[in-house]
């Protein structure tokens, strides 16, 4: 399974439609402080079904919708998609390409799509079950949290082992 593409529009500081293509190996992101690098990590977490606003560094989930600058108006919704290459059939669907999309409106309404077809959060969770993709503790290390594992108490450390079991 391969992560092929990330698309964002109106998600945090990515007001305009932005696409990043991925291949196997290492992809690096660089840029000055505050330019939007960690917002990319938040977008991936959000698409995979993150329900906590705090986990994407906001106080409410609407904080992920582009809310304007000195010269631009705020937008009405945020949308982001991840496309996977399902070449080995790891994801339990017959498509070779699987695109997961999430959308949030200012009204609070939230929508999920699987290959452009509306679906529920539950469907996305089932799709990724046991594939190692997901919001678990060890495949996304947020900024400043690299020591979280050493600093946490011994019960919290179990999570990383339970995920792997």
């Amino acid at each position, binding site marked *: 399974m391969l992560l092929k593409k990330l698309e964002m529009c109106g998600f945090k500081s990515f007001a305009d439609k932005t696409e990043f293509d991925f291949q196997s190996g290492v*992809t*690096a992101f660089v840029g000055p402080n505050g330019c939007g690098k*960690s917002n990319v990590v938040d977008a991936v977490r959000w698409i995979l079904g993150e329900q906590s606003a705090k986990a994407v560094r906001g106080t409410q989930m609407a904080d992920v919708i582009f809310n304007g*600058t000195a010269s631009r108006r705020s937008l009405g919704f945020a949308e982001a998609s991840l496309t996977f290459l399902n070449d080995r059939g790891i994801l339990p669907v017959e498509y070779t390409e699987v695109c997961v999309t999430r959308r949030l409106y200012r009204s609070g309404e939230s929508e999920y799509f699987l290959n452009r077809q509306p679906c529920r959060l539950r469907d996305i969770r089932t799709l990724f079950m046991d594939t*190692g993709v997901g919001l678990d503790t060890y495949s996304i290390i947020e900024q400043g949290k690299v020591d979280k594992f*050493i600093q946490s108490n011994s019960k919290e450390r179990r999570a990383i*082992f*339970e995920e792997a079991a």
Partner: protein
Amino acid sequence: SREKFMQTFEEVRKNFQETFRRLFGGGRCDVMLDPEEPDVLEAGIEVLACPPGKELRSITLLSGGEKTMTTIALLFAVFRSKPSPFCILDEVDAALDEANIDRFTQLLVDEFVKDSQFIIITHSKRTVGIAEILYGITMQEKGVSKKVAVKVEDVTNMLN
């Protein structure tokens, strides 16, 4: 189930000892279940880490860089027993000196890039050196993030 957990635990423990020795160029480490707790599914996990030439001490006494390297060793140990298709690392190299950045990136390239994709956010030119694809993000228009094509040579002037 208990067997499954114990099997994974032993595997990760063995991997941890190997990746730790690779990242620190020696030394020793261990992970242990709390001996006071009879049920393995409830027991807390203790981490011991001892850089080469030093005595074994509590992990709270490790330096900032040593803690980061120990966490990376454990992350890689878990990865080895159950690789995830992709992994995102957001400035994990911030506390590392040049020598440790080199050991971390070397181990990543030697062992883990073949099984998983890595997305790495960094300010360090040494880390950029291992990337196949490089994206720049800028805010030429204040407050709006835009993708910019960058070449490795122009970036290395920009970075630390």
